[in-house]
């Protein structure tokens, strides 16, 4: 089979095998820029792969992006693949991307919950959680966005293994979460984390587990304001923005609260489209428009991170 990034259909949804295979192709097509790292294994022993975009240097400051931590949010994995390709294609062409990658590395985990993602293709399209077995319960899986050590165990998550927001038995109990924790702590120089979800059209920043404003609230709010404004300029998609707790509800143990509490100042989480009435089964015709508008906001955040070293 001939493999090329030019034959991969970004306007369609893909299985995990197709995406993992395409990642190898992307690396092969851009050997001086893109490499693939394995940061761990999932509960069902699937590889946890991260694409690293780097122009060299050692332990440069870095931006972390992840998509698909909630497996049924297919628009996010699709956006992740499109974004990876965009970063690779725009380096050397677009001045912002070039400046970012000349100064920093970007890490992108396209399928942050591979077991769940595989399960959405085989058995239950609506599966959100991991696939780990819960002792003493017939219900499977933990919500990987309630499993982080940031207000873990408080309200805004569930202690019921049958709930979609089950927090798990202890913080970082999920291999998929622990792998990211170990990677970010081990790296030590991650300056921004952007975790991508869908579908409520929001750009959020800490905190979710407490009502107190984050120390960098004002700056994060300004960054978010500009990002959603530039996103809306593409197709008119309206996003709201603010802290998780102010914008949605109290939610304990979330990714970006943990990263913020661990020194990653520019911690954001996206909730991508649904502009219509589809929710998690957003038609594939909306993949490219969604990814395109998201790119505008992502670039804003990444450029801000580059220009505001700390």
């Amino acid at each position, binding site marked *: 089979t001939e493999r090329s990034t030019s034959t991969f259909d970004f306007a369609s*949804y893909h299985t995990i095998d197709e995406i993992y295979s395409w990642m190898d192709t992307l690396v092969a097509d851009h050997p001086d820029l893109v490499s693939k790292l394995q940061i761990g294994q999932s509960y069902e022993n699937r590889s946890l792969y991260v694409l690293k975009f780097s122009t060299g240097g050692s332990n440069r400051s870095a931006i972390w992006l992840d998509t698909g931590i909630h497996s049924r949010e297919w628009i996010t994995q699709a956006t992740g693949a499109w974004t990876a390709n965009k970063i690779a294609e725009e380096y050397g062409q677009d001045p912002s991307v070039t400046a970012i990658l000349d100064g920093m590395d970007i890490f992108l985990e396209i399928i942050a919950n591979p077991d769940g993602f595989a399960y959405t293709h085989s058995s239950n*399209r*609506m599966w959100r959680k991991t696939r780990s077995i819960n002792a003493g319960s017939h219900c499977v899986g933990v919500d990987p966005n309630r499993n982080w050590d940031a207000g873990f165990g408080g309200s805004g998550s569930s202690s019921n293994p049958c*709930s979609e927001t089950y927090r798990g038995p202890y913080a970082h109990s999920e291999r998929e979460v622990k792998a990211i924790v170990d990677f970010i702590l081990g790296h030590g120089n991650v300056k921004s984390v952007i975790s991508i979800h869908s579908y*409520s059209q929001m750009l959020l920043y800490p905190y979710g587990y407490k009502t107190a404003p984050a120390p960098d609230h004002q700056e994060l709010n300004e960054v978010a304001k500009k990002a959603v404004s530039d996103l809306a300029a593409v197709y008119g998609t309206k996003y709201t923005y603010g802290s998780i707790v102010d914008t*949605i509800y109290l939610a304990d143990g979330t990714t970006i609260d943990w990263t913020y509490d661990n020194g990653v100042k520019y911690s954001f989480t996206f909730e991508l489209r649904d502009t219509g009435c589809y929710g998690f*089964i957003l038609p*594939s015709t909306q993949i490219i428009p969604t990814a395109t508008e998201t790119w505008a906001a992502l670039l804003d955040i990444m450029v801000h991170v580059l220009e505001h070293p700390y």
Partner: protein
Amino acid sequence: EQLFVGDQVLRITASNEEQIALLRALDEQTELQVDFWRHPGSPGHPADLRVPFPSLQAVKTLLESKGISYSIMIEDLQKLLDEEKKAMAKSRR
């Protein structure tokens, strides 16, 4: 493979905090097996709730009795999933 024949997704708009609390309580009623796609946040903001076919009547009756407005966002979830599967197969070909 889990099928979703007859399942609906309701777009619900709570008008006050009391109605939001009621919606949140729905999530705790495990026998209904409902699943919030978009959780209830603040009054006026839509929440999206997937309701399995066997629970539809109970949930709709509850919403109507409490005066909580809703519309049917997805009429038959399985129908959309079948279309999605078809689109993926076509794209793969």
